[in-house]
């Protein structure tokens, strides 16, 4: 690998890390606060991608403009799913919610195949292939924009969690649910908002991904897996931890992709196993399990 290729890989990895952080943060807050490993996270992401695709294909809506639409729709959908489905088993052991979200993911994916067919599809705005050269390194506009938007959304989430009443209620609930109840926090609503936020962030990631990569109904699973590995890498419960995890993971994925392009998912799992063996508390040092 020469130095140009190396620099290109570094740029690619950086750009990828933004989107991956966005995918993982929604997954992480749901896991950290509700203690649910949401296997349907990738399915929400896929729906977000399709919302952007259809709005673009049918109505010519610019894919970046459809981002808030897919976020709002999935926020509502996520709220309802938590409030009227998962809420009934929230006191159940982790395995039960695990199975429930697994079932949800299969159902969503199957419905997507039925209604939208299994073909690969692409969102192709006029600026899709454009970019600029940084020296000799190519930077596609859409990926740069996706990277920046991911960082902005992550920052907004941080502000929301720190400075709003609802954000504080969510954090408090994650730390001590009974103490939160004693301060008047309505747990059912708070859980539903948390889950809805997770779904909206997944949708945002899906919309952004659809502009740079082809989409299909099965695309979600690979992202759920990556979100899982990133949370294990970065430790649960902290946004900086997740961002670090995503950065690290993006580098592993981009560089291993050069040597073994067909082993992407296997490598994710390999990293997971290695981390669990070497440093089970995650890189950030905080236990990822509760």
């Amino acid at each position, binding site marked *: 690998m020469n130095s140009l290729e190396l620099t290109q890989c570094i740029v690619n990895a950086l750009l990828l890390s933004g989107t991956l952080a966005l995918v993982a943060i929604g997954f992480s807050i749901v896991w950290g606060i509700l203690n649910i490993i949401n296997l349907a996270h990738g399915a929400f992401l896929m729906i977000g991608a399709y919302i952007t695709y259809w709005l673009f294909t049918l109505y010519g809506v610019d894919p970046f403009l459809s981002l808030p639409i897919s976020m709002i729709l999935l926020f509502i959908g996520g709220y309802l799913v938590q409030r009227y489905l998962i809420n009934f088993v929230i006191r159940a052991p982790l395995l039960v919610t695990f199975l429930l979200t697994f079932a949800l993911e299969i159902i969503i994916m199957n419905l997507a195949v039925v209604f939208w067919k299994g073909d690969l599809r692409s969102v192709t705005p006029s600026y899709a292939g454009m970019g600029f050269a940084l020296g000799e390194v190519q930077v596609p506009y859409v990926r740069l924009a996706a990277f920046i938007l991911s960082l902005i959304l992550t920052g907004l989430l941080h502000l929301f969690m720190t400075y709003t009443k609802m954000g504080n*209620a969510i954090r408090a609930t994650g730390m001590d649910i009974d103490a939160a*109840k*004693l*301060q008047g926090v309505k747990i059912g609503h708070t859980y539903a908002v948390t889950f809805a936020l997770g779904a909206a962030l997944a949708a945002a990631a899906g919309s952004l991904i659809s502009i740079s990569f082809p989409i299909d109904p099965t695309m979600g699973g690979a992202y759920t897996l990556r979100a899982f590995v990133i949370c294990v890498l970065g430790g649960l419960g902290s946004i900086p931890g997740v961002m670090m995890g995503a950065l690290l993971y993006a580098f592993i994925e981009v560089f291993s992709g050069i040597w073994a392009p067909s082993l992407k998912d296997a490598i994710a799992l390999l990293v997971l196993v290695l981390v669990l063996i070497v440093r089970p508390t995650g890189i950030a040092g905080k236990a990822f399990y509760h």
Partner: protein
Amino acid sequence: MLKIENLNVGYGEVQVLWDINLEINKSEVIALVGSNGAGKSTLLYTISGLLQPMSGSIKLDGREISGLPADEILHLGIGQVPQGRRLFAGMTVKENIMMGAYLRKDTERVKEDFEFVLSLFPQMGERLNQVAGSLSGGEQQMCAVARGLMANPKLLLIDELSLGLAPIIVENIYEAVSQVIQRDMTVLIVEQDVLLALEQADRAYVLDVGHITISGDAKELMDNPTIKEAYLGV
């Protein structure tokens, strides 16, 4: 103000409280004492709506509140400083204290009350941006009391404030609590340290393995032979 009648509470099948009757009048300081595992915290959890009673009634100003969710009970005016402080360890002192005002919409009054609790516990003012988990035990208890006060409840339930703290700090915190009492807050103090509780209170109830066995004027109870023997070690 609060009237508990024939209350029975348990965890699953295991009954912990039997036929509890207890009354708190406005502006009174009531002590609820009893040894380890007597069921004091269970009673407070039930009053606050974290546990549902098996039977019996809890009335606040004549209104039945048993069975209501915790947030409604707080909204109606019963706050709690739970045993073990139960701070939100990863949040700052300021965030913890402000969580106490979570339900309140009267922003101006909340600001005044925030200044007031800081005047009660000046140490908290110096630590506002510190993470609550990093406070010393005494400071954590101050933070917990401050959080409880921020709800501005009519009736405040305080569970084992003194546990594991140096006497001088306990005195300090009770001094702050007595200032609040003078501001017309009604308080129920739960303590294992019977003498300490009786000193603070107007009236007291003794809870013995799930039954209220003795009740009466706090000062008189200090001379009660049964209490002297069982709890004061005289």
